[in-house]
C-alpha cells in the first residue's frame, strides 16, 4: 500500500525536490536554528545588559532555560494533537509523530530541570527547590516516561498506538492542572519575568530572548522532522525484511 509506493520512489523524490522544499527541509531548519541560537547567545551575553539584581551574570541562563521549557510544552502539545488525530483516523503516521514529539519533549524537559538547577544554585544557593515550574517539569518527566512504559507494555501495534494517543491526550491536560496545583502550595522562589503588565525586561533582553526562542523552536521542529524521517525509514526497512522473510 502506502509504503510500497515510497520504496519505489525515493530516487524520484530527490530529483523532484523543489527549491522551496530544500529551504524548509530538516537539515536546513537545523542550520537556521544553529545560527539563531548562536545569535541569541551572543546577544544575550554582549548586547543585553547584565542583570541589576542579585543574580547578575547567571541570569543569562534564562535565554536558554525558558525557550527550552516552552519548546518542551510545545512538543507535548504536538503529541496531544497527534493523539487526537490518530484516534480519529487510525493512521500510523500520527502515532509516529506522537512518539517522536514526546521523546523530544522528555529530552527538553530534562534540560529544563538541569538548567533550572544550575540557575537555582547560582541564584538561591540551592540545587533544588520545590517551586511550581521545576516541580511541574519533574512531574511531566515522570508522566511522559510512563508513556514509554505504557508503550513497551503493549505488543500489538494498533492497540499500542491507541493507548499511547489516549495517554498523550490525558497527560497534556494534566500538565497545566499540575502547574496550578503546585501554586496552591507555599510560594516558591522562582522569579516571575512575564507578569500581567508585560515583560519586566529591558527591550534589549527581549530581543535576545525572542531570537533564542525562535531559534529553539526551529531546533525542535528540525529535530522532530529528522526523527520522523528516521522512523519512517526504520518502518520501511522492517516491512522489507518481513516481505523478504515470508
Amino acid at each position, binding site marked *: 500500500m502506502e509504503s510500497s509506493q515510497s520504496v519505489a520512489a525515493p530516487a524520484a523524490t530527490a530529483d523532484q525536490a523543489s527549491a522551496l522544499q530544500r529551504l524548509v527541509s530538516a537539515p536546513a531548519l537545523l542550520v537556521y536554528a544553529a545560527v539563531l541560537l548562536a545569535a541569541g547567545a551572543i546577544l544575550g551575553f554582549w548586547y543585553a545588559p547584565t542583570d541589576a539584581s542579585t543574580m547578575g551574570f547567571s541570569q543569562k541562563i534564562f535565554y536558554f532555560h525558558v525557550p527550552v521549557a516552552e519548546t518542551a510544552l510545545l512538543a507535548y502539545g504536538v503529541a496531544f494533537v497527534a493523539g487526537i488525530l490518530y484516534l480519529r483516523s487510525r493512521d500510523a503516521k500520527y502515532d509516529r509523530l506522537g512518539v517522536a514529539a514526546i521523546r523530544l519533549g522528555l529530552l527538553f524537559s530534562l534540560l529544563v530541570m538541569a538548567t533550572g538547577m544550575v540557575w537555582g544554585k547560582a541564584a538561591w544557593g540551592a540545587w533544588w527547590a520545590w517551586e511550581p515550574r521545576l516541580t511541574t517539569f519533574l512531574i511531566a518527566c515522570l508522566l511522559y516516561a510512563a508513556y514509554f512504559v505504557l508503550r513497551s507494555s503493549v505488543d*500489538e*501495534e*494498533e492497540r499500542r498506538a491507541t493507548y499511547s494517543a489516549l495517554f498523550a491526550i490525558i497527560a497534556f491536560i494534566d500538565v497545566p492542572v499540575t502547574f496550578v496545583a503546585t501554586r496552591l502550595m507555599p510560594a516558591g522562589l522562582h522569579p516571575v519575568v512575564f507578569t500581567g503588565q508585560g515583560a519586566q525586561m529591558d527591550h534589549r533582553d527581549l530581543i535576545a530572548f525572542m531570537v533564542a526562542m525562535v531559534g529553539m523552536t526551529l531546533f525542535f521542529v528540525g529535530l522532530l522532522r529528522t526523527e520522523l524521517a528516521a522512523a519512517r525509514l526504520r518502518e520501511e526497512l*522492517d*516491512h522489507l525484511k*518481513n516481505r523478504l522473510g515470508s
Partner: protein
Amino acid sequence: MAEVDVAHAEIEVEGLNKTFGRRDVLRDVSFGVERGGFLSIMGPNGAGKTTTLRVLATLLTPTSGGVRIAGLDPLDDPMPVRRVIGLISHSPLLYLDLTAYENLRFYADMYGVPERERRIGELLERVELSHRRYDQVRTFSKGMLQRLAIARALLHRPRVLLLDEPYSGLDPHAVDILDGLLAEIRAEHTFVMVSHSIPKTLQLSTQVVIMDAGRIVYRQAGRVDEGDFVAVYREHVNEGVAL
C-alpha cells in the same frame, strides 16, 4: 419498537479486511446468509474464523469492508445490532461468583428483556438447570456452564445466533440439549457457526465455507456427503499452506 427494512440476505459481508499491525488476518472475505440459513465456517487454526465471527458480533471493527446484519450496519451504529444478535462462545461468559439466576438477571436487565422473571424461568427450564438456579456458577460443570450460556444467549430473543465452537468440551447430555434447542429455534433464526467438527457441520448447515490464511478458499451451498466433504476439506486446506 424500531422497525427496519429487511435486506435480501439476513447477513451480508462484503470485502472484509482486518490487519493487526503487519498481519493480515482477514483478506477480502465476502459471504451472505439468507434468513433462516445456517452457515458453518471451517478451517485450520489461525484461518480467521473467530475473527470473522467477532466482526459479526460487533466486538471487532474491520480495517475495511462492509457488514449488514438484519438490514442494520454495525459499523455505523452497533447498538441496534447488539439487540438482534446472540453469541455462544466456547467461553461461557458467565460470572462465577454469581448464581445462575443472578447471571441471567444481569443480562436480562442489560438487554431490557420484558417479563424478565418469566423469561428466565422459561429458559432455565429449557436447559434443565432450574434446580440449580440459586447455586453459584463456580460450582457448575463445563456442560452445565455451556447450557447456562445458551440460556444467556437466548434471553433477548436474538434473530441471529453466532456460535464459536459451541460443542467443544461438552458432555453427551449437554450436546443433546444444545441439539434440541437449536432444532427448536431453527425456524425464523439465522446462524453462523465456527466449527472443527465435520459431522456437526454437515448435520446442521445449509452452507459451508472453508477459510485458510484469512481467505475463503471453498464455498458450498446445500447438502454435502460427508466423505466428499472430508476430501474437499483436506484438498483445500493443504492448498492454503504454501511451500
